[in-house]
């Protein structure tokens, strides 16, 4: 046990000293900080105003000079009676974001909405709804009605949403991001185990190492050491993200997009547990492939099957998360290759009960035990194999060897 921690400590120190690890961590942290500063950067380019400029052409003064009432924090209304060609020119030169030409024919009011690209438009534009409401208000005000009469004609419409399926508690967006972060953390961290094992074979240090401690201590010590480095990186990323969001982003904007109330300490702990178990599953698979090659150039091809399993696991979890109440998502929570990415999401959404969580963790632990015993056996028998990459048949032979 002591030797395992000596190997883990040495591996952790080695990982933290690697230039590639340091540089990739700095790049990720910078990307987070820059990402959170994009609204500020865009403000500094556009000046303080980030309002959308909307031009309204009302030749017949249908809105009776009331159009400026539509200006708010998001929109700046510009009134100018330009021709359609002049408006298009302003759109193409990015002077305005959108434009509306208002016209009255008989009793009908026609709106011509002009935008740079209408490809992704779905339904009527928001400004058209605003104009319709403004017109109604102007006409009602002319009737000299009492407040009650106005309210009876134009009451405030409140609505709430009720769904037939089981209700989700949490924030899908936050968990989707967390799943992706978990996937990358597990994937890139676990991959390092394979590379670390092959490097020891390439540098021929392995023979000295196996006479100093057991293969079990080497495989598990390496897995723990690299896992700790990955965990430190993950914690650093999360802390930087929290700091950057609070420091650089508008709190109202953040709360409208991310509902942080559903991110609790127990959920954080369970996510951490799934990261550890998911990492251990994939790291031990990568340790298996790493011990079957002895040349750095063979690592990538040896790792391809595990990389594919990782991708499949992630996509199963990701696509079933789009419909979290489905049976498919429930099954994904039990499959050991997808459960680490999927189960924290299900727990936060309130879809997974205690039994499901325990079964899912049990399956993962069993998988880790099976993979580690196969990996340690193959590693023990394959460490002195300095030849070319081993085939699947060779791996089975190594496993069966005494």
């Amino acid at each position, binding site marked *: 046990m002591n030797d395992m921690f000596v*190997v883990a400590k040495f591996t952790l120190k080695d990982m933290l000293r690697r230039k590639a690890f340091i540089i990739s961590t700095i790049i990720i942290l910078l990307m987070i900080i820059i990402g959170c500063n994009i609204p500020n950067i865009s403000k500094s380019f556009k000046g303080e105003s980030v309002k959308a400029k909307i031009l309204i052409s009302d030749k017949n003064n249908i809105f009776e000079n009331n159009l400026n009432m539509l200006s708010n924090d998001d929109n700046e209304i510009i009134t100018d009676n330009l021709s359609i060609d002049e408006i298009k020119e302003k759109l193409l030169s990015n002077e305005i974001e959108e434009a509306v030409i208002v016209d009255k024919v008989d009793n009908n009011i026609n709106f011509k909405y002009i935008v740079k690209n209408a490809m992704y438009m779905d339904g009527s534009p928001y400004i058209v709804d605003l104009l319709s409401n403004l017109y109604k208000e102007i006409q009602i005000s002319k009737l000299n009605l009492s407040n009650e009469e106005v309210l009876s004609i134009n009451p405030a419409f409140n609505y709430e949403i009720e769904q037939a399926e089981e209700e989700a508690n949490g924030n899908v967006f936050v968990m989707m991001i967390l799943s992706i972060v978990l996937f990358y953390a597990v994937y890139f961290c676990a991959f390092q185990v394979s590379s670390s094992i092959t490097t020891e074979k390439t*540098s*021929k240090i392995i*023979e*000295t190492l196996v*006479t100093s401690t057991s293969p079990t201590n080497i495989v598990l010590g390496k897995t723990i050491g690299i896992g700790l480095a990955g965990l430190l990186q993950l914690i650093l990323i999360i802390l930087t993200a929290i700091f950057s969001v609070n420091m650089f982003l508008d709190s109202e904007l953040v709360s409208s997009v991310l509902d942080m109330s559903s991110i609790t300490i127990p959920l954080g702990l369970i996510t951490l547990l799934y990261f550890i178990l998911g990492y251990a599953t994939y790291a031990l698979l990568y340790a298996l492939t790493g011990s079957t090659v002895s040349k750095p150039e063979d690592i990538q091809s040896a790792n391809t099957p595990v990389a594919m399993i990782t991708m499949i696991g992630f996509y199963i979890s990701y696509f079933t998360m789009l419909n979290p109440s489905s049976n498919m998502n429930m099954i994904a929570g039990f499959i050991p290759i997808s459960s680490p990415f999927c189960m924290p999401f299900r727990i936060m959404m309130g879809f997974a009960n205690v039994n499901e969580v325990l079964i899912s963790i049990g399956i993962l632990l069993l998988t880790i035990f099976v993979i580690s015993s196969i990996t340690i056996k193959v590693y023990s028998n394959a460490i002195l194999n300095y030849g070319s990459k081993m085939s699947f048949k060779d791996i089975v032979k190594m496993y069966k060897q*005494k």
Partner: protein
Amino acid sequence: MLKIENVSKSFGNKKVVDNISICMDKPEVFGLLGTNGAGKTTTIRMLLGILKKDSGDITWNGKAVDRKKVNFGYLPEERGVYPKVKIIEQLKYFAELKGMSKDDAIKSINKWAKLLKVEEYLNMPAEKLSKGNQQKIQFLTAVIHDPELIVLDEPFSGLDPVNTEILKKVIIDLVKEGKYIIMSAHEMHTIEEFCTNVIILNKGKTVLKGNLRSIKESYPANRVLISTNDNISNIIKSLKLELENSVDNSYVIKIKDENDGYKLLDKVIKSNIKVNKFEIEKPTLNDIFIEKVGGKNE
């Protein structure tokens, strides 16, 4: 006491070590000889538990040789270091794996670094060291924890004469300190210099084993060195002896036994040629090795 008794190992259908027995009952350097592929490294790997033997027993003081029970050191044939890691860090790592405390490890590293003259490299990454210095670091790794049994697989290969002398002195001192050393080497003169007992393997089988001096004594003389002040080529021819080498009237001549040598000396003296030097030699270990393995020493 180290005992290797009737040990065998096969890979598939190929028997690479066939019923080998070795016994070391006192501190010494034991020579393990053989051509490439003779089974030396496989024997060492079985001795250290890296490979599992198919049959036989390997014991140290009556106990099976196991990392946990026997304090051994190993310099493998395949040299290896962590290229990017500082020498001191990797030495401390292996010392800790051998159960040493940090303080003891540092004391031992400093002592050995001084003896092997590698002190200046301790804070450098291994990749910046020459091959010879990397090899000395590996030797240091093998002895850092003061092992009782030391296995050195080709310890001198790749070392320059200066470093070879440093390592030779260290090995002699280790034996004086009571260490049991098994050494595999290709350089026969090195084995002759160090080893009391040897075993020669060929294709996994023992072809010769025992005390090196006794083995050599059991062989008849096979060579004459003679230096004269005149040319004696015709005399050598007339006696039908095989000339191995000659430079400026100094000759190395192959003989079947000592009598051939004395006949040559007699004839040279009778021809009134002055003899400056005359020596009858026993076969070298290299001669015995070549005779036993039936091929050239690689």
